[in-house]
C-alpha cells in the first residue's frame, strides 16, 4: 500500500512581525536569511498520520511530495529522517504563487507520474495563506473522495479509509473507499522526533527532483483571486485602564464602566 504525503515549505509562522518584509513589486512576503523556512506544521502532522498508519498496517510505502519555488533541502530532509521512503520535490519559479491551482495541479501531475497512490494525506491548510484549497482541488483532479480535519486516520480491511473528524464540540466518524484524499488537523498530535541515527542517514540521502516541464501540467480552467496589495495592519485598539486605589475598588469600577458602556447586559439578555 502507498501513501503520498503532500508537504509545503512555508515561512516560519512564528517569525516575529518585525522580520517580515513585504515585496511590493512581486506582491510577496519575504523574510531575512536568519529566519529559515519550515515544513508547514499541519503537513508534518500528515506525515505523523502516515507513520502511525504504517505501524498499524505493518508496512506502508510513504512518499513525501512537495511543489514550490526554492527548497531548503536541510529543512525538507526532515521527512526522510522520520522514515519517509522517498522525498520528491518539484521546484520551479512559477510555483512561487499563492494561487492554489498551479500548486495542486502540479502535485496531481506528480502523483500520476509516480504511478498513483492509495492515499493522499495533506495538512488542513498552509500556515502562510491559510486557504486550505489545495486538498479539494487535488481530490477533484485525481477523482478521489476527500475527508477532512482528521484527528485519527485508519485503514479498514485495505479498502476503506476511516477518519475521526474534528467538530467544534466533539467529533464524527467518516469513511470513504480508497483511493482517497485525507486532510489532518492539530488534534492528531505532533510529529514524532527523529532518532539521530535516522537523521545522519537522511543527511546523506538526496531528494528526487521532478522537473515541472516533464509533468505535463495543464493550466487550470479555474479562476482564483489575485493579490494586488500587502500591508502590515495597524491595530485600532488602545487600552483604557481602570484606576483605583485597591483591587476591590477597581473591580467595582470596572463593572460600572462596562455597564454604562453597554458592553455588559445583565441576565444574559442580548
Amino acid at each position, binding site marked *: 500500500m502507498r501513501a503520498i504525503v503532500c508537504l509545503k515549505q512555508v515561512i*516560519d509562522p*512564528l*517569525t*516575529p*512581525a*518585525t*522580520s517580515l518584509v513585504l515585496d511590493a513589486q512581486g506582491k510577496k512576503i519575504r523574510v*531575512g536569511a*536568519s*529566519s*529559515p523556512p*519550515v515544513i508547514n506544521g499541519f503537513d508534518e502532522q500528515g506525515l505523523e498520520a502516515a507513520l502511525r498508519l504504517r505501524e498499524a498496517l505493518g508496512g506502508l510505502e510513504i512518499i513525501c511530495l512537495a511543489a514550490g519555488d526554492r527548497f531548503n533541502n536541510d529543512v525538507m530532509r526532515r521527512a526522510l529522517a522520520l522514515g519517509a521512503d522517498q522525498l520528491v520535490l518539484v521546484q520551479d519559479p512559477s510555483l512561487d504563487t499563492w494561487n492554489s491551482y498551479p500548486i495542486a495541479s502540479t502535485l496531481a501531475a506528480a502523483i500520476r507520474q509516480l504511478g498513483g497512490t492509495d492515499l493522499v494525506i495533506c495538512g488542513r491548510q498552509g500556515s502562510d495563506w491559510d486557504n486550505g484549497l489545495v486538498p479539494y482541488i487535488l481530490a477533484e483532479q485525481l477523482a478521489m473522495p476527500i475527508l477532512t480535519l482528521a484527528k485519527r486516520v485508519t485503514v479498514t480491511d485495505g479498502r476503506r479509509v476511516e477518519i475521526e473528524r474534528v467538530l467544534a464540540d466533539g467529533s464524527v466518524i467518516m469513511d470513504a473507499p480508497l483511493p482517497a484524499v485525507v486532510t489532518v488537523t492539530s488534534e492528531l498530535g*505532533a510529529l*514524532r*522526533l*527523529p*532518532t*539521530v*541515527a535516522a*537523521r*545522519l542517514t537522511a543527511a546523506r540521502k538526496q531528494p528526487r527532483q521532478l522537473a515541472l516541464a516533464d509533468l505535463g501540467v495543464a493550466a487550470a480552467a479555474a479562476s482564483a483571486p489575485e493579490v494586488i496589495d500587502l500591508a502590515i*495592519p*495597524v*491595530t*485600532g*485598539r488602545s487600552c483604557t485602564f481602570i484606576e483605583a486605589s485597591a483591587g476591590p475598588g477597581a473591580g467595582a469600577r470596572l463593572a460600572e464602566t462596562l455597564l454604562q458602556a453597554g458592553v455588559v447586559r445583565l441576565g444574559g439578555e442580548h
Partner: protein
Amino acid sequence: MRIELTLRLLVILAAFVWSAFRFERLARPLMAAPAEPRLRPLAPRAWGVLVNILGHARLMRKPYSGLMHFMMFFGFLFLLTAVAQVFGEGVSPLFSLAVIGGPTWIALGQDVSAVLLLVAVAMAAFQRVVWAPARFAGSNQRDAAIILALVTAVVVGMLMQNACHLAAGGDPSAPWRPVSSLLAAALVSSGLGGTAAAAWATAFAWLHMLAILAFLVYIPGSKHLHMLVGIPNVFLRDLAPAGRLVTPDLEQPPLGLSDIRQLGRKQALDLYACTECGRCQELCPAYAAGKPLNPKLLIMNMRDHLLETQGVGGHRAGLGGALIGGAVAEETIWSCTTCRACMEACPLFIEHVPKIVDMRRHLAMEEGRLPDGISGAMLSIEQRGHPWAGTPFSRLDWCRDLDVRVLAPGETTDTLLWVGCTAALDARAQKGARALVRLLRAAEVDFAILGDAEACTGDAARRTGNDYLFQLQAAANVTTLNARAFKRVVSVCPHCMNTLKNEYKDFGGVYDVVHHTQLLSELMESGRLRRPQGVEIGLDSVAFHDPCYLGRYNGEYQAPRAVLAAAGSAVTEMERSHERSFCCGGGGGRAFAVEPPNERINVIRATQARAAGAQVVATACPFCLMMLEDGSKGAARAAGGNARPQQVLDIAEILDAALHGAGGAAAAPRPPLPPGNVAT
C-alpha cells in the same frame, strides 16, 4: 592447640576464598567497562586524596558526622595492625609484630583506637536512631546496623581478648594498654584468672577474628565497600571544568546510556563508592520540591541494578530488568535541573549529573522521547535558532533604539557582548540587557554584539541529551565567532558563558569568556564606573541568589557581591548560598518544561528569599530572573493576606539604578503588535 590452629587457618582460608568470589563478581563489570582517561595528572589527583580522604574536607561540612567519621577512619586505619596480627597468628603462631613495636606503641595505639571506635559507633548509632536526620530516609538502615554491630564486635573482641590475656598474666604489653588493663583488672577482681582467662582470651580472639572475617565477606554486598573504593574514586575524579560534558561521537552508537554495561569504568566505580549518606539528597532542589528524583536513590538503584545483573544480589531485588524505565524511571531522569548541588556535596566525588545526562542522551537521540515542553523548545532551536517559539521579538528588537554596534564578519572589537536568547527575546530579561548596555557606555567599553548572527549556544540542548542539536549549534556559532576578531567575550547569561568558555573548545572555539557581573566588578574596581556621591539608591538590603552555572559550575561567588557592595547595597545572605545555593529550577531544560503546580522549585527558592527578609532578590542570570519572578508570585500567594511578591532584579539593573538614578532602568521596548489585529 594444633587443632585450633588448623581450624583457624581453615576458617581464614574459607573466608578469603568466599570473599574472593564475591569481590570477583564486583570486579567483573568494572574490568569489562570501558576505561576513561583519568590517571593523569598525578599530582592534583594525589593531593585530592590527601585532602578529602585523610583531611575529611567535605565530610567536615557536617562537624558531628565529620568528627565521628574521622575517629572511625583513623581508628580503623590503626587497627589494621590488629588485623595483621589476627591473620599472621592464624598462619603461624610465631608471627609477631614485636619487631616494629607490637607490644609497645602499637599496643597503645590499638587501645586508643578501640576507644575512638567505640565512641564513634555510639555517635553513629545515636545519630541514626535518635536524631534520624531526613537525609537517611531511603538509605539501607539494616546495612548500617550490621556494620556498626560488626565494628563493635571487632573492637570488643579485640579489647576483651587483650584484657583476658592481660588477666592471664605475663603479657609484656601491659603497661602500654591502659584500657585493656582496666578491663583486665575488673576481670581479675571478679575472679577470673590463670588458665580460665587464657581460655577466654582464646575465645575472644576467635570472636575478634570471626568478626573481621565476617566483615571481609560482608563488604562486597554492603555500602561499606566505600572503604576500598573511596580512595580510587577520589583519585579518579573528574578534573575537567565542571561545566564541560563529554562530546560523544554521534556516528558511534550507542548514544547515551541505556544499558548498565555501557557505563564507563569510573562511572561504575561511582556506584560502588556510595555510602548512602544522603548529603546529595538533602540539597537536591528537585527532591525538595517533591519531584520523582532523589540523587541518592538514583545511585543506589543503579548500583543494585548493576549487582542484580551480575547475580550478586543488590539490596533491593527486582531491579534486574531494564535500566531506564526499570531501575530508573523516565520522570526521574527528566526532573533534574543539573544544578550540581549533589556532586558538590558528595564526599566521594560521585558524578550524578553525567549519568543523568547520559540517560537523557539515549532517550533524546536514540528514542526521540522528550517531555513536551522541552521537545518544543528543542524543535524551536533547530528551526529558528532559539528556544522561545512565539516571541514577538527578533534578536535586535531589544536594542533598536540604543544604536548598539553589530559586528560583521571580518570586523574587530574589544569586547564581544554575547546577549543570549533569553535576554534578547524575553520582555522582562531585556531590561537587564538594556541596563548593561547603559553601564558599558558609561564605562566607555568598546563593545559590539552579533545581532541576528547570534544563535543559541545549545546549552539547553546538551543538558537535555540532544547532543546532535548541540553540536550543530556549536559548529555554527564557532564559525560565526571565528570569522570576527575580539579580545574577549562577555556573556549576559551564565549558561552561555559556561558553554562558550568550557565546551566550545571541542569544536575549535577557544575564547576568553567572562560573565557580565565579572566585567562590572572589574569596571567598578578600576574606577571606570563610579558611583556618584550622595546618590540615594533606596536599596539597603539585597539577597543575592547564586546562579548554579556561575557559582558551582564556574566558581564565581565574589564578583556579583562586589558589584552589589559597590552599588551601595547591603547583601543579606540566604541560608542556602554560595556552594549550597538552591537552584531556581530553570536549568537542565526545566525552564521549558510544563511544571506540575505542586512541584515548583522556583516557589521554594522564592520562599527562601522571602525568609531572608531582604527588600530585593538580586540575580545574575536571565533564567533565574524569570523563574524567581514567577516563583515570587507563588510565594506571596502562599504567604497569604495581602502579601506582595518580592521584587527580583538583575545585578546590572541594580547597578544601573545606583549610578544613574532610579529612572535609569530603561523601559523595555514595546514589541510589535500580535497578529489578528487588523484595522477596522
